[in-house]
């Protein structure tokens, strides 16, 4: 992936920038010691790294605004950062930018069970939002795999999903209000505890804008009362195609599980070697979870198993208690770790119409042989959000490039069959230059017009989302 050439003029303003930031913020909030800024050179897309000019870690919204005003004044690009867990390079800095992180802003501001909302500062981790309300029986629904580490700020920037969004929706469906700081340092409140915001749906477009429209420092999130319980069933099949058809049949039958997870043979094998979850030796398996009281769980699982049996499963393993449930989930939850044991891997996240699942899996298998790189598939089957994991060896020359080329071909395939480049990870730098495959120039122009409104000089996270060529004239204004 290419990044724009940093501006020498901006780099030359570093000492002025640092002294102005230090004058405006507490000393510990402004970091430019190269040892200390090292941790901010990359996010979870660790193949790419670059030292920023400095790092700002404010405690308050007003400090965020002050920092942004200074950067705006000095024409310095700002790369927002939550917890740095982006798989798409969403918080990768450039040498002429600063990182603005919200990690120190992690308080719960208000918990309101009567209206079923929680207001938090956005540096708070996803899981600790649920942690703040679970003893009272509530939870925050979006559950990205990185939920132990990832921050709400990043969830909002990328509109993160998770395994359970088949029933509960993604971040955007659970975000009710934000406090947003614009690049000019203006503080705006949009939405709130009421169920729809007035006027145009700015909340909808801010969520998923990858930190390009403003920095969200506070969020009002929907919380839901926990169900009485949840249990999964594991079903093994002797072909991907049959497993895919079974998913579609379950959905058509009117059962709406909270999660339908899919793993193919390469992934099952790797997982077994690593986690020894006792999975069956088969081509494809589904983990389907339902919720409710014991009686309701039984009613739904019976329907699901009856449908599965019409597809000649090689194994049906139904959890009857939480220990068995944990064993069924063990393999799925360690799938990424298991693949990582074998080799370096790249995780894609294109989405396809569910009906295209068998075809796309077959094509990925063929391409895997053409490129000579192994792929394991583990994904959210209910909503068609795939996660092909391409294995490669980072220490071998040319392998990363080959892997990226293969990944790009898979994503183009997702678009060809009516899907999209990314279902929950975001575009970042990773899929930026593939955007032309999904969008015509007028489509991209309409999106960039929104950025023009919020950040007309393109200083916030400028080299992301849009193909560099498409955004060049906008990014180069100040240089």
């Amino acid at each position: 992936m290419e990044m724009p050439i940093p501006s020498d003029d901006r780099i030359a303003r570093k000492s002025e920038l640092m002294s102005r930031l230090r004058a405006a913020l507490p000393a510990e909030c402004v970091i430019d010691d190269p040892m200390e800024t090292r941790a901010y050179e990359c996010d979870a897309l660790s193949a790419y790294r670059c030292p920023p000019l400095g790092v700002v870690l404010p405690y308050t919204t007003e400090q965020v605004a002050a920092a942004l005003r200074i950067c705006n004044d000095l024409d310095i690009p700002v790369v927002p950062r939550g917890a740095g867990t982006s798989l798409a390079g969403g918080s990768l800095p450039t040498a002429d930018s600063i990182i603005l992180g919200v990690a120190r802003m992690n308080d719960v501001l208000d918990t309101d069970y009567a209206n079923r909302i929680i207001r938090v500062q956005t540096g708070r981790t996803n899981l600790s939002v649920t942690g703040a309300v679970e003893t009272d029986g509530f939870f925050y629904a979006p559950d990205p795999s990185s939920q132990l580490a990832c921050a709400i700020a990043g969830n909002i920037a990328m509109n993160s999903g998770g395994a359970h969004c088949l029933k509960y929706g993604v971040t955007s469906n659970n975000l009710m209000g934000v406090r947003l700081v614009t690049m000019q340092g203006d503080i705006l409140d949009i939405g709130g505890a009421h169920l729809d915001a007035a006027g145009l749906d700015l909340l909808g477009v801010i969520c998923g804008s990858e930190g390009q429209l403003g920095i969200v420092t506070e969020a009002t999130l929907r919380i839901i009362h926990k169900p009485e319980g949840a249990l999964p069933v594991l079903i093994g099949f002797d072909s991907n195609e049959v497993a895919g058809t079974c998913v579609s049949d379950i959905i058509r039958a009117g059962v709406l599980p909270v999660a339908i997870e899919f793993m193919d043979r390469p992934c099952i094998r790797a997982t077994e070697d690593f986690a020894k979850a006792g999975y069956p030796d088969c081509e494809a398996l589904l983990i389907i979870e339902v919720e409710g009281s014991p009686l309701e769980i039984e009613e739904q699982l019976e329907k699901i198993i009856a449908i599965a049996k019409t597809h000649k499963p090689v194994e049906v393993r139904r959890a009857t208690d939480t220990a068995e449930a944990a064993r069924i989930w063990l393999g799925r939850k360690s799938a990424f770790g298991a693949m990582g044991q074998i080799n370096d891997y790249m995780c894609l996240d294109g989405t396809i119409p569910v009906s295209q699942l068998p075809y796309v899996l077959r094509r990925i298998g063929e391409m895997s042989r053409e490129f000579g790189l192994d792929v394991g598939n583990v994904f959210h089957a209910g909503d068609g959000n795939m996660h092909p994991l391409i294995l490669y060896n980072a220490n071998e020359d040319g392998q990363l490039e080959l892997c990226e080329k293969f990944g790009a071909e898979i994503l183009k395939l997702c678009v060809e069959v009516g899907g999209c480049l990314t279902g929950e990870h975001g575009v970042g730098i990773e899929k930026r230059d593939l955007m032309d495959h999904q969008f015509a120039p007028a489509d991209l122009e309409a999106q960039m017009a929104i950025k023009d409104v919020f950040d007309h000089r393109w200083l916030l996270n400028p080299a992301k989302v849009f193909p560099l060529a498409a955004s060049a004239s906008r990014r180069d204004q100040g240089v």
Partner: protein
Amino acid sequence: MTIFPTTEAELSEAITSATTPLVISGGGTRRVRTADGAHLSTARLSGIVDYEPGALTMVAKAGTPLADIQAALAAEHQQLAFEPSLMGSVLGQDGQSTIGGVFATNASGSRRIQAGAARDFLLGVRFVDGAGNVVKNGGRVMKNVTGYDLVKLLAGSWGTLGVMSEVSFKVLPLAETMATIAVHVSDAATATAAMTASLNTPFDVTGAAYDPASGRAVVRVEGFEKSVAYRAAALRDVLAQFGAVEILDNAASAPIWTGLQNLDALVGTTGDLWRVSVKPTDGAEVIARVCPTAYVMDWSGGLIWMRTAAGQDVRTALTGIDGHATCHIGRAPQFHPNAAGVEMLMSAIRSKFDPHAKLNQGLMG
């Protein structure tokens, strides 16, 4: 005069060549209170383009009648889970609601508190902006974070950013059955307390409304038969502290919820018509301040449809309460003004998408 484009190209041509402002409509059931101009309707951009019941997705041209969509979905035991509110009866408008109109106005009914709003179900749009450009955003898959989400921006934009030509959306299975737990209460505050108590349980309530004329707060559960019976009984116990409780079966429940969808409680009443959206626990306070001549509460108290004396200033009465009021019949501007900084952004977005101020000019600010 009304222009009826039959293709997206004609729609683009109609907007490009327009020399006066355009009043945009679908089936004309949701009154657009904008300045006069030539009328442009999507009613002849009609037809279901693609429907995949196993993927829970449908694609349709914007002018497709809502009734056609619902019939196709019902044949597969599926539905629009956000229960689009229907404005024709209460506004006294003839015509057929269209799917484009439903999404353009983000018309969401009782199930909004559990399943989400219309905007949450809209997956993709094709639209023509005010300069005549054809733009697409989103797609027909359920999870999509590729680029900015203009889909949600277009939902609820009331035609001011572009005229939708095609929409794709998520659908959900129809529940096997439902039950309504009705609790007799005498005021909005008690009704709100009862609705709140029912939502703060694990029993997956899919509707919570209060009609003062009937003196009942109603709470709905849906799903498979055994599950519905179990949850209805559990909720009866939760609600007993608020008043006499009865459980209504599937057949007795249906008219209650279609009545809410049609705003039956306000059909035939007179005065200005307002829609107020606040946080649910503020609903009763809004009623106390405004003293409407008739009203119905939905979304556990967070949504109030009300009639007031002509000219009554509802927005001033909301001072200090977060939320907004939309005036569907009356002299007040249709949409609630926003804070200056937010309004500036909205206005700038409108200028980008509609540079010549052709689309429902002045409607949203």
